């Protein structure tokens, strides 16, 4: 592997990311499965780094999952997005930041389609006016929240309490990145680093002291496939694709997986559990899995936030081996406690996968 070759490509895909004043729209999946990730994104960007990030309670889903599950027409998805633009205009913002990759892809694709077919934009403006009596401006910038963290990665590194380094050996952690398909596969120039060697996540990893591991199926989809996961009958597709990735990364012994799409960490986490139940196989050390984290969780760990505040307890793959490697102290007894130390019982344990 020739690192300079990648750097050359990265330099061709340097996306402009505004450094302040963002209008934030949330992700359905991230809120449901990684709510603390969004919470910490806001905390880091707004409170720690003092940037202006605005969220209106009136924004909704972008409809992306319904759209990519083919249950709503294209114009419906476009009009829902136009309504979000309208809320942004109302709030006086021009830089849109999405938490979800499907949304990011959706917004990007819609703006590109309107650029190519202006008559469609006109029609959507009519739809939105008729339905909601609303008008909108198109955003000047659309960024994914991982773009923002990429942009702020060095500021985060300056405030870091921990590095992505094995605290006993001093060796950098071996980290696999997984980029959501809709981040840049459709429009390579809309993603930091392009589609083939995106550096939005690898840039964070390197900035925080880790070592990025490339493996053959790095670019392969996690297997979500919308209807291929949402319908129970199709989940064989979904788990088989994740399985393919794990088989490919296994020889590289990664310490963790970092993701930027909200769905991918869920699938890369839960399918390890399913694979272990169905085949007895685990991919981490000593019967553990490989933790699949969101970039917010990883940023949070580096900045020294409590792992249980970050929500690492609601991953099926236990984060403890990773925390031990990084030298992060945690209290096992507090892992599953509610607010104010409230006892809310504990989850059951998987048959095969070791969880703590």
């Amino acid at each position, binding site marked *: 592997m020739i690192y300079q070759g990648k750097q050359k490509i990265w330099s061709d895909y340097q996306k402009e990311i505004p450094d302040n004043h963002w209008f934030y729209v949330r992700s359905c999946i991230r809120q449901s499965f990684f709510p603390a990730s969004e919470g910490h994104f806001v905390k880091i960007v707004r409170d720690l780094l003092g940037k202006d990030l605005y969220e209106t309670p009136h924004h909704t889903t972008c409809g992306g999952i319904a759209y990519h599950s083919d249950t709503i027409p294209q114009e419906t998805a476009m009009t829902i997005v136009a*309504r979000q633009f309208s809320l942004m205009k109302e709030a006086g913002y021009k830089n849109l930041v999405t938490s979800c990759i499907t949304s990011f892809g959706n917004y990007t694709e819609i703006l590109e389609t309107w650029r190519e077919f202006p008559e469609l934009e006109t029609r959507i403006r009519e739809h939105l006016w008729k339905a909601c009596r609303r008008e909108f401006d198109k955003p000047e910038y659309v960024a994914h929240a991982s773009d923002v963290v990429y942009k702020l990665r060095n500021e985060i590194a300056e405030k870091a309490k921990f590095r992505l380094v094995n605290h006993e050996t001093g060796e950098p952690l071996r980290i696999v990145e997984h980029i959501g398909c809709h981040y840049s596969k459709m429009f390579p120039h809309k993603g930091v680093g392009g589609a083939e060697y995106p550096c939005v996540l690898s840039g964070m990893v390197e900035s925080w002291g880790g070592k990025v591991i490339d493996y053959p199926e790095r670019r392969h989809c996690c297997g979500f496939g919308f209807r291929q996961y949402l319908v129970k009958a199709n989940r064989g*597709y979904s788990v088989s694709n994740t399985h393919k990735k794990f088989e490919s990364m296994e020889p590289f012994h990664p310490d963790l997986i970092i993701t930027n799409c909200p769905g991918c960490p869920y699938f890369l986490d839960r399918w390890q559990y399913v694979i272990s139940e169905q085949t007895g196989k685990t991919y981490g050390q000593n019967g553990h899995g490989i933790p699949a984290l969101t970039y917010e969780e990883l940023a949070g760990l580096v900045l020294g936030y409590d792992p249980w505040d970050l929500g690492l307890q609601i991953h099926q793959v236990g984060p403890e081996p990773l925390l031990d490697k990084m030298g992060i102290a945690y209290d096992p007894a507090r892992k599953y406690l509610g607010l104010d130390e409230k006892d809310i019982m504990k989850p059951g344990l998987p048959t095969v996968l070791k969880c703590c």
Partner: protein
Amino acid sequence: MGKLYDELCKDYRFKEGLHTCINCGTCTAICPAAEFYKYDPRKILDTIQRKDEAAIEALLKSDTIWYCGECMSCVTRCPRKNGAGLVIMALRNLSAKLGYFTYSEKGRQLYPLTKALNYNVLNLGYCVHPSTFVFEDHPESGPVFKWVLEHKEDVYARLGANFGKEGPGALRKIPQEDLDELKAIYDETGATERIETVEKYSLAKAEEMGMTPDEYLKYTFTHCSKGHFNNE
């Protein structure tokens, strides 16, 4: 040119997704669906560019068009700027509109998808939400998520979410006025009509298969016949 092909040409995703196909197979080579299902996106594009109405109709009624996961990996690699995934979206849209989706097992899954997702969007303002995420339908979400679902209020509160409450934050309650706007958008842009169409054809199919709507919903959600995967 035939009627179905003309219909496809009206779809913007089709306009963007099919220029001319050179049959090189870069799409199939890395397609997550092609690796496991009996699926070859190259052949789909080639079939359509032949403009053979009978072949297009057969596609619209087939399982084939429902195997794609819309990951759009194919878009990156095509040397002719096609996007098989975009063409698939146009085909599925037409199949839904004409009721052809009920002819195939994978197509019939549009019913549970339409019901569940649009319920969430219109009633909650989310595509996916813990309050409608049923563990029995998602055993893969694991014992940890079973626990989360059993203690929703506590866990989400512990993780700093604003679960079901007013104001901003994760999993906040989306105000009724905003849900009303979503409904108005659905009515205006054809989504409501689409939901009704899918419902109409699905219920007719349920009757034909001798099932109640609920049985049909459950069956289409869970049943997977042999023969979809390549090794079968």
